[in-house]
């Protein structure tokens, strides 16, 4: 039930694209996200109200959707900063290592900082690969 609600709230407005009536309507045996046959698609309207939508115009509608567009902006901005933040943390850990002197616990904390930065980089790389595989067309452009 909860997953259906999430689908209805998040996925349906972006994927069913302002359909008007008949087979286009999600309540007429067309669960959100299912592919329509070409005959059915002729009676549908895309998000701009134009009839007979093509896959290109539907894709345009999807990319023009505020959720998708802003999500792409945020994702691109944050993924550009990952490398910079990770290298900054590693350099901070190096300076901490230098300043540690002969104190063992200070060296341990510096090592912890460096390994955590590397774990973050690894997590981002795996998340990048997973999302690129999961989302058709890829989210990182």
């Amino acid at each position, binding site marked *: 039930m909860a997953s259906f609600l999430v689908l209805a709230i998040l996925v349906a407005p972006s994927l069913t694209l302002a359909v008007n009536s008949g087979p286009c309507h999600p309540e007429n045996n067309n669960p959100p996200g299912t592919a329509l046959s070409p005959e059915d698609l002729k009676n549908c309207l895309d998000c701009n109200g134009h009839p007979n939508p093509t896959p290109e115009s539907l894709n345009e509608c999807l990319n023009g959707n505020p959720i998708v567009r802003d999500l792409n902006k945020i994702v691109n901005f944050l993924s550009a900063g990952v490398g910079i933040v990770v290298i900054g943390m590693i*350099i901070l*850990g*190096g*300076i*901490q*290592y*230098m300043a540690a*002197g002969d104190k063992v616990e200070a060296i341990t904390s510096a090592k912890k900082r460096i390994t955590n930065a590397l774990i973050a980089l690894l997590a981002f790389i795996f998340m990048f690969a997973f999302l690129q595989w999961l989302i058709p067309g890829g989210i990182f452009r």
Partner: protein
Amino acid sequence: MITLLLAKISFIIPSFFGAVDCSADPPGTSFLSIPHWWKYLPLEPDGAGGCAPHAINLPDDLWAIGLAIIDIMVRLAGIAVVFFIIYASISYIISQGNAEKTTAARKRITNSLIGLGVVLVASVFVAFIGNTIGK
């Protein structure tokens, strides 16, 4: 001789002798060769012989500033390692053969060298990954 002098003066005070080239952060304008935080922003002549960023668009320019801050941190680490090694060497000298103090000083030196290695390897490593992924 006079031409050499003129060339030197024109290097020191470029605004009197022509337009300032602001396509890159001009060298020799910063303290201890530490780069400015606006190094990677689009620069323009500021009218006083230097260069300054024209406008800062947040948040798009945030990572450019972050990259410049990383450059500053690498330079600061290079300066800091010199001072840490000098401090450790002096403590080595004044240890007077005391075994505990000499091992502590030696550990100090090796740790500061390890820290320098971490800083250098990190900058090279992440620049390499950024170049290969970013293409």
